[in-house]
């Protein structure tokens, strides 16, 4: 999530209203006000609206939402006459370049900070950590056009930002903090992307670091924006968002020529949407004119086209409008969620419980009747708990997660009794007897199904108790079962049995082996029972 700092004075000037009016309503366009400070507010915006990641963008949206200035914001773009060439060798490395010239900027500490933080938020939300899009901002007056985006040998030297000595690009990846952070994006390529001017001065080594030469300072008047990446759409959105934010702040945007194409245009996209479709989806009755008014409040251009249609111009900074429904959401926001009548649908259906949960509930009822207390352990556990402490071989179908966070969460449970023994260990200081049960999912060979298990710990817990408990549950679940000698090493030999249903092993019960008790650091005997609930007649087997 992007948390944007909004300095009140700047925001008020841009929005042309007071801070209270803005802060009272800003949540209604889709945000969370995180903190209200003396001179600024921190507000969180959603990742689908990178155009709101700057005070300029927020002011633009709020002017519309508050009715101060509605409709499509107009941005004029003059050609700068500056051009870029693109080296064809970049096609396999980092093919896309976007750029613009922004003139007449006035920087102070705050506005440099604001543009840097917009740049960082875009790197995160649009750029996917700079791999998809990386943005560079330069003092245009330190370099000489035309510019060249080239695939350079890695031994090329220049002075990177925040340094005074030259380094090779290979060295930058090792020595420069930004180099280390982003090396993985480029390190496998034989040549590295580089932007140079007509005199071979380095502007930028995208997506890693700019050159020190073009550093933006408070004296900077004219900016050159470079945006490189792997996805043309994302690169263009990033350019548009920065250019329009700077234009909102009073700067003039000029286009450049890249491979013969004049860019950016900052022109809106167009689509024609259906009023009826919108009304039906939202459940509010709208005329074409009403819909157009609402869209203009959200800074779209919108004209009723007669009949059911509204023609919509989508501002160039709106990355999130992919589908007609995306404009309908804006209609709903402009209309106000609080004004939409909340009315459950008339759809008639009959509630139907899932048999798996019905059986789980039954198992709970029976265990409770036997005086057992339900626990709900995690499904992620370790081989140590599931197998080693139980003196059992690892189950063949156990599921291992690829990148566990801790050694306690490496595998999805295949059995429940080990987790209950863990519980008994955690509750050693509590009054005995303790009788615990669990019903829940286990996974074997990617198949999820349910098991139930119970344990009873007290000085007289024994095989007979385990057998009686198992028998009561199996009878109450109408499971036709027989028992056979078990070979389960978690139990004491001669005090253990497998539950057999239709010739297949469906469970086990008995007295836990003292070596297992030692492993779980338990001090009394434990009678235990575990059952595969697929043995219940009627359990849905996929």
């Amino acid at each position, binding site marked *: 999530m992007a948390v944007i700092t909004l300095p009140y004075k700047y925001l008020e000037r841009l929005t042309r209203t007071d801070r209270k009016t803005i802060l009272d309503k800003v949540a209604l366009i889709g945000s969370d006000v995180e903190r209200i400070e003396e001179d600024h507010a921190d507000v969180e915006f959603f990742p689908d609206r990178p155009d709101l990641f700057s005070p300029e963008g927020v002011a633009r949206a709020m002017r519309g939402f508050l009715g101060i200035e509605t409709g499509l914001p107009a941005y004029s773009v003059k050609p700068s006459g500056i051009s870029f060439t693109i080296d064809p060798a970049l096609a396999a490395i980092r093919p896309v370049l976007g750029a613009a010239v922004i003139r007449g900027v006035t920087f102070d500490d705050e506005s440099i900070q604001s543009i840097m933080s917009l740049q960082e938020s875009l790197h995160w939300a649009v750029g*996917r950590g700079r791999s998809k899009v990386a943005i560079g901002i330069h003092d245009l007056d330190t370099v000489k056009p035309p510019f060249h985006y080239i695939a350079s040998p890695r031994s090329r030297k220049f002075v990177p930002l925040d340094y005074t000595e030259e380094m090779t690009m290979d060295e930058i990846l090792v020595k420069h903090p930004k180099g280390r952070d982003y090396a993985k994006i480029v390190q496998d390529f034989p040549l590295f992307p580089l932007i140079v001017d007509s005199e071979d001065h380095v502007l930028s080594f995208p997506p890693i670091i700019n050159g020190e030469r073009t550093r933006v300072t408070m004296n900077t008047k004219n900016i050159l924006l470079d945006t490189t990446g792997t996805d043309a759409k994302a690169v263009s959105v990033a350019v548009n968002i920065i250019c329009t934010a700077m234009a909102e702040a009073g700067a003039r945007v000029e286009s450049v020529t890249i491979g013969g194409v004049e860019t950016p245009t900052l022109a809106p996209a167009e689509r024609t949407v259906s009023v009826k479709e919108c009304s039906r989806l939202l459940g509010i009755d709208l005329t074409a004119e009403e819909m157009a008014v609402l869209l203009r409040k959200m800074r779209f251009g919108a004209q009723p086209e007669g009949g059911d249609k509204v023609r919509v111009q989508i501002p160039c900074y709106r990355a999130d409008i992919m*589908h007609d429904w995306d404009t309908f959401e804006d209609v709903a926001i402009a209309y106000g969620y609080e004004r939409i009548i909340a009315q459950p649908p008339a*759809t008639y259906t009959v509630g139907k419980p899932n048999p798996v949960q019905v059986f789980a509930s039954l198992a709970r009822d029976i265990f409770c009747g036997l005086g057992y207390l339900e626990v709900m352990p995690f499904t992620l556990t370790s081989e140590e708990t599931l197998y080693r402490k139980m003196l059992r071989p690892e189950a063949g179908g156990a599921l291992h997660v690829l990148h566990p966070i801790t050694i306690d969460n490496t595998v*999805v449970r295949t059995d429940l009794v080990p987790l209950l023994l863990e*519980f008994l260990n955690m509750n050693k200081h509590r009054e005995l007897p303790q009788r615990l049960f669990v019903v829940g999912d286990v996974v074997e060979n*990617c198949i999820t199904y349910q098991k139930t298990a119970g344990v009873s710990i007290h000085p007289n817990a024994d095989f007979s108790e385990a057998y009686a408990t198992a028998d009561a549950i199996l009878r109450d679940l109408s499971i036709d079962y027989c028992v056979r000698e078990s070979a389960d090493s978690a139990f004491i030999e001669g005090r253990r049995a497998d539950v057999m249903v239709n010739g297949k092993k469906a469970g086990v019960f008995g007295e836990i082996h003292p070596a297992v008790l030692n492993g779980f650091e338990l001090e009394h005997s434990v009678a235990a029972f575990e059952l595969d609930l697929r043995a219940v007649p009627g359990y849905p087997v996929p």
Partner: protein
Amino acid sequence: MAELTQNEKRLLAVLAREGNAEALHLARHLEATSDAVVQWAYLAMDNGLATVDRIVEKGFVYTDEGKKYCEHGLPETQLMEKIGSGTTLAELQKHEAFRIGFGQLRKKGLVVVKDGSVSNVDGASTSEDEIALKNPGEGGPRVKELIKRGLLQETEAIRYSIAITPAGELAVKQGLDLREEIGTLTRDQILSGAWKNASLRKYDIAKLPKKAYPGKIHPYQRIIAEMREILLEMGFSELYGGIVQQSFWNFDALFQPQDHPAREMQDTFYLKETLPLPKGYEKVKAMHISGGETSSTGWGGIWREEKAEQCVLRTHTTSVSIQYLARNPNPPVKAFCIGRVYRRETIDTTHLAEFEQLEGIVMDEDVNFGNLLGILREFYHRMGFEGVRFKPSYYPYTEPSLDAEVFVEGIGWIEMGGAGIFREEVTAPLGINYPVLAWGLGVSRIAMLRLGLKDLRQLHHSDIAFLRETPAFRRTGGV
């Protein structure tokens, strides 16, 4: 005055006869142990009917060594008797009492050693120590010394002298019901009618019973069951599905772009297992790349089959409901699923790597955003939350999207869950031709509020005391 126990009455009856008596003596009359008599006497004392006098008597007993010296004299006495004129130290050393006796004589200053010969000091005597040993009586410094030497041990004897008070005498005079008290009625007494003449022991209701702990459903499970019942009442069908899901169903079918941050391995538990893509997956692929046959532009870029085949621990139950919709594309569908979902999070008091999610879907001709708000309001009202409001939000697979907030007394508005209408990019490739309203909520958030928990882990690593003490029923709904 509290009701007298049968034993108190019996004691008073005997005391009225015997007057002032020792507990031991009374015990013989009452055919009980003296400890029991003392206990009854204290009860009677609490009622002002008797007095109990606790008398402590000190005494001494001999150790084995002390007993020996009592017969043969202390080692120093024995040794002193051997000392005549010209007795040498070497001669004395042969005596068995030398080791202890000589040390004592030197310590008490009763002998002098000069040029290898030993002589008694004038008037030397051990007789006072001998007397103290044989008759320790009331103690004193010499006896204390003998205790230190391990020859005597101090003992304490406690006697109880019990007397009846005038109030007790009055009670006896007024007559005591001395019939045998019955604790548990026997079958015989019930059938024979003997109960009619029996005196049933009365219990002290001010005394709390020993706690019984019934078998119980987990308080968290109870909340899950409550939500489940509400949704069943509202006409929803319950879904159950696997924990292991293909990325295709967990992400791609829900129009999550393949480079979406939520799909990175920092956030999702990936598995080495893969599954073949379902038939017709190409439509989902086309949707991602170009928007398929809808008004959508799609995400553009590339879409890789291998990425969609990889299995994950489901990050939401939407992976289950979307497959249900794909299998049941004909309206109406109203379904819900409550199940565990997984996020690759470091576990702490407010984050778990696995937690319960509730998810509901409604698909029908002409269902709309207002209907979604209606369902949510109804659900939260039934959960006991009076104040419910909605605000814009963002989820990759719904449009429009919203967050629901409920009002909690003393806390304010709390975000409870997200909702929206499935994007056409989600429904169209699966052949679902009607709007699908969908909402989800974190069940544990409500559980934390209801149960007043500060640590989410307590839901899963529960202290048994918490489970035993949490009431099964709470009067108020909501929180």
